[in-house]
């Protein structure tokens, strides 16, 4: 079962410039494992050295923050879309 994952601009260098990729899994955790297996360059950007999701990368299942669902245990289906929303600071210079 493949779920669509939207990749933000700063992370597209790690997905061969693709803005959306697919990964398989029954939960968000499984999806991310499959995603980082297919695109190993993403791993360092999503997880810290302790293997925990980085706190400046937010994950949204459809329009809801997964911190307010069941985090990585949140079940997903093929009709869902997972978005990675990193913090960006640009604006002035």
């Amino acid at each position, binding site marked *: 079962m493949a779920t669509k994952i939207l990749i*933000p*601009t*700063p992370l*597209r*260098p*790690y997905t061969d410039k693709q*803005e959306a990729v697919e990964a398989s899994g029954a939960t968000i955790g499984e999806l991310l494992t499959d995603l980082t297996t297919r695109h*190993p*360059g993403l791993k360092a*950007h999503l997880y810290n050295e302790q293997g925990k999701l*980085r*706190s*400046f990368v*937010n994950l*949204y299942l459809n*329009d*809801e*923050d997964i911190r*307010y669902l069941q985090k990585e245990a949140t079940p997903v289906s093929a009709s869902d879309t997972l*978005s990675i*929303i*990193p*913090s*960006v*600071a*640009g*604006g*002035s*210079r």
Partner: protein
Amino acid sequence: MNANALPELNKDEIKRYSRHLIMPEVGVDGQKRLKAGSVLCIGAGGLGSPAAMYLAAAGVGRIGVVDFDVVDFSNLQRQIIHGTKDVGRSKLASAKDRLLDINPHIQVDVYEESLTSENALRLFEPYDVILDGTDNFPTRYLTNDACVLLGKPNAYGSIFRFEGQASVFSTKEGPCYRCLYPEPPPPGLVPSCAEGGVLGVLPGVIGVIQATEAIKLLTGIGEPLIGRFMIYDALRMKFRELKLRKDPECPVCGTHPTVTTLIDYEEFCGLRPAVSEEQIAVATNAGSATEISAVELKARLDRGDQLKIVDVREPNEYQINRIPGSQLIPLGEIPRRYAELDPNDEIVVQCKMGGRSAKAADYLRSVGFKRVLNLKGGILDWVDKVDPSQPKY
């Protein structure tokens, strides 16, 4: 504010704002609220330019601008408040002239200083709305925390390449920036606009969203962008809206805040380590063995040293300028292409300013490369100090 206490509009102002006045949602009262209102723009750059210009045109009575930069040719692709004639002038002088040219009925106050924990509360205090258009994480967290401490709404916008984000943070009922991003990314992991580039019209869209929200907050009309995060993708021309929640555990706006005064934001963002001077000295010495300056690199190449130069920028950047003999492997391709390099070679990695190449160097070391040097200051330093015949970008 009580409608009776609002400032009157004179004849010139009534003529100027007539397209507002004939709309019942704004009307004379709304226009007076704009006249009584004030917005402080942090930064007169990509976001601050269009935002401040529209706020001035709309008749916001007092506009403040904080900046300490000078107008450069590379700003003009997007910072439309400045013109070619302003190159070399202070951004504030240029911005003030432009804003008062658009609307002489308003007051423009400029603050030629960098925003710090020492001056933020004083600068924000007189304003109704703060418009965050800065370009770095320390100032964004500082702006957020100062807004929360003072109870002032923050019309937030941020941009990167083709993507923008906007929201209204730090209202009493809504979430703040820290509810969304409790911690900043480590330095170097997220490139700046100067490194990553930005489509010139993008800050126009996002800055005008910020100005729209500021106007709605001042007039009290519509549905403000509170508790919602707008993401705009210019290439796909798509807006997406995500839900934001006020985090009860938030260290600034939560129920038991642990941040009750402004802190050292450089340190918070990992830009100035909270360690002893001795530790810094050790770290600096360790660092120097992994870096090389442009001048040293030139000297070693002239001496005939066998150095493999790997340029980790993107192909379009490589087209603009390059170090002769370098091999292009964009940072994102390093994990699957590093086998093209010989781990026994002495390798110099290089990008535009040294940030991306530092990451590439870390990666190469992690997969067993022993002799990897990062070119300090990147190609920009190379052009400045070794080969000024090449263009800079």
